[in-house]
């Protein structure tokens, strides 16, 4: 019986830890002003741009499937 309980406890510990790692938890309380964070990212592919050339930037996504937050 105790073994079952320990297993049950271990499984739930792992599930909760995974959830916390993914940022799941109570909904954040929206704040009044935007809090932009500098982009943390992989290194961009490198290419020399001609000096002073105008640049068009495209931000893009695909197959997001209605993602709301890491917990769905």
């Amino acid at each position, binding site marked *: 019986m105790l073994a079952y309980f320990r297993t049950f406890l271990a499984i739930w510990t792992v599930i909760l830890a995974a959830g916390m790692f993914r940022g799941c938890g109570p909904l954040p309380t*929206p704040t*009044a002003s935007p809090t932009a964070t500098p*982009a*943390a990212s*992989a290194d961009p592919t490198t290419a020399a741009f001609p000096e002073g050339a105008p640049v068009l930037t495209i931000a*893009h996504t695909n*197959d*997001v499937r209605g*993602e*709301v937050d890491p917990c769905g």
Partner: protein
Amino acid sequence: MARRANAIQSIGQSVGGSPLLVLDAGNALLGYALSQESGGALTREAMDLMGYDAMAVGGGDLALGVAHLRALADEASFAVLAANLVSRETGLPIFSPYVVIQRGGVRVGILGLTEDTALDQAPDAESYDVLSYDDTVAAYIEDVASQSDLIVLLSHVGLQDDKLLAERHDAIDVIVGGRNARRMVAPEIVNGAVIVQIGARGEDLGKIEIALDEDSRPVANRWQVISLGPEFSDDPAVASLVLRYRIAAQSPTATAAESDAE
């Protein structure tokens, strides 16, 4: 979603006055429980807030019907594109085939394609057809090119077919693709066209920078994968929107609009 909004906002701030487009290559609106329960309204509203300019139709976006997506598209401030999804009765496209967006003096033609199996999940599939990718691009590309400095194919047909289309149609400059949910680490370059695809489930955001010559033609490009981890804080406007829909979902008699009014 709220992290993505913050990341897009950061890119907008970093480019300053230079032109920025925000695009989605399909399967955007439905899937996760809360978005599905809202009939895609939550995602549509969030994409409006994030400043999306256009999305391609993916099969997953049609899971509640072509007519349902058509109604969502009418409410959206971004273009919903599918040149090859047509009415079986009239042969005409149900969604806009393409859009030309002029930004910072650059005219960008964006042509949308959906996949050949797009109607598999649609409950009203019998009224529609999906046409050949190649024939559809051939039918529209000159028209788009005549109005644009640069052509983007916004495609949910998959990487292999994206490459074939790039080989066959010289006018395509960029393909923002989807369907394979492939997290590319570098763009594929085919016949001069830059092809990108950025994983799935909103875990990453792609960023292409294209240097232009004096005729607004591309001369060089850089691409970056931005991982949307917890280091990104939530955008408050999108976080509030999600909260409103969560409250409405927990109170079956209240709509999200009513929650907003409270």
